[in-house]
């Protein structure tokens, strides 16, 4: 298919953010997303936007590349925003037709939703662009450790997660291969109306599913043959260690939080 940057793919360059411990990056991303919901006026919105821009600057990945990653999702965002504008009520009414109406509250709400969508997607793209998928899986495993106390099968969940992430590129390659093979059998993916285009998905999706199930079975057999025991304690080949710059990053996050609270209290 095309080799454009996909939403959520890793960008292999060197930067301060790439070097950070994946655990602190994951925590920062989660906390930041929570903070987004505390935004209630222009000033707080700008403050968090500035923090995001700083992170983008530090990630050494061009803004254009982020935009390319987000672009495919933009249509969904726009549809959501349009619904929000047309179907929410309250405040002054500017226009209405049947059950649809454009109101002051609707406009403000949709603006907030637009802001949240873009910021949250960009922030998580910063995380995925600077952190390899296995690192994210490791970080998640670490973050879920306390859940072991309440008998959550953390090991199994993280294994499932890392296997799923591991096979994303494999499945992408396979999709390309199958599409090519079906094109060689005369199918034209770029023609026809929506209905035929949906029908054209069948010869791609079915082989993809069949092959994935086969592969999963083989993988399970191979793991069992090598003595995998889901309940045994696991050790890690890649050990995560904290560094001084991780502490600086945590401090930076602290500043963002305090800054937000300060703006909300003062103004």
């Amino acid at each position, binding site marked *: 298919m*095309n*080799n454009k940057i996909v939403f959520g793919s890793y960008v292999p360059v060197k930067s301060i953010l790439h070097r950070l411990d994946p655990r602190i990056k994951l925590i920062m991303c989660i906390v930041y997303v929570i903070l987004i919901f505390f935004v209630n006026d222009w000033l707080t919105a700008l403050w968090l936007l500035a923090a995001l821009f700083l992170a983008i600057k530090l990630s050494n990945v061009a803004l254009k590349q982020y935009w390319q990653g987000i672009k495919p999702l933009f249509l969904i965002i726009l549809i959501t925003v349009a619904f929000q504008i047309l179907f929410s009520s309250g405040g002054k009414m500017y226009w209405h037709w049947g059950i649809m109406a454009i109101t002051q509250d609707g406009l403000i709400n949709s603006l907030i939703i637009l802001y949240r969508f873009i910021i949250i997607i960009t922030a998580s793209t910063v995380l995925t662009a600077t952190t390899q998928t296995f690192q994210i899986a490791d970080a998640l495993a670490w973050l879920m450790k306390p859940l072991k106390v309440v008998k959550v099968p953390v090991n199994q969940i993280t294994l499932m997660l890392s296997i799923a992430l591991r096979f994303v590129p494999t499945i992408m390659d396979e999709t390309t*291969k*199958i599409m*090519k*093979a*079906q*094109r*060689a*059998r*005369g*199918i*034209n993916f*770029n*023609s026809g109306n929506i209905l035929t285009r949906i029908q054209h998905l*069948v*010869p791609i999706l*079915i*082989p993809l599913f*069949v*092959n994935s199930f086969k592969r999963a079975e083989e993988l399970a057999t191979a793991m069992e043959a090598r003595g995998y025991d889901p309940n045994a304690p696991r050790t890690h080949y890649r050990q995560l260690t904290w560094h001084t710059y991780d502490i600086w990053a945590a401090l930076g996050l602290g500043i963002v939080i305090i800054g937000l609270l300060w703006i909300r209290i003062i103004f």
Partner: protein
Amino acid sequence: MAKSAVTIKDLHYKYPNTTSEALSDISLTIKEQEFVAIVGQTGSGKSTLVSLIDGLIKPEKGDLNVAGLKINATTKAEDLSKVHHRVGFVFQFPEQQLFAETVEEDIAFGPRNLGWTAGQIKKSVDDALKMVGLPVALKTHSPFALSGGQMRRVAIAGVLAMKPQILILDEPTAGLDTQATNELLKLIKQLNNKATTVIMVTHQMEQVARYADHVIAMSEGKVIADTTPRHLFSDSQQLAKLSLTLPISVDIAQFLRKHDAKLENTEPLTLDSLADEIVKAMRSKENE
């Protein structure tokens, strides 16, 4: 002189977002009814070359003429898909592309995409099943309930049903046992005898020696040798450079020659012809 099925002139190709060319400056001619083997190490550009011949990707520079259709960098997508009416492509592990509920429907997929009539489709499905040696009764079975070898035959039947003038096969025997391999190669040879041009990517030098009339050896996106199998196997230096091995018959013949056996033909392409050579050499020794 037979007409040419494929001509390629000054062809260049680069995959998007890569710096080095996958194919650079390729020029070659494949004649009608030829059995061509394409050899070379993994990543040498074999698959890219055959994808270009099948119009699955567009060249960056240069011209192709495939069964009378001209392809170059400015060819439109719809014209590119016309190539599929004339060229069939059997991918590696083709059984991984089966999708339909019945064998019949899967084989009919190609002809239906080409816009054939119901009668034509039915006939081509039956013909294709017969060609690959599967019973017609299998038509109503699910392709996923068949054995691995049968699945591959159904997949190949799906390509043959399109009645291609040029048949491309990318390592068709990978993962098959000896018997299935021999049967499949025999089938390909039969098709070749019935006027189909065959282009086969392979790593098996025995297959090259036994079946091909013409061999194209590739390395790092360039054609290194474009010659007959006999000529390729006589040049041991070039073979070493390409990291290709000799077919066993040639290997034994060269070993014998090194030990002063007087063989007339030092590149016997099959074990039978090697045996003949040895008999000849022994007889002439007796006569001395």
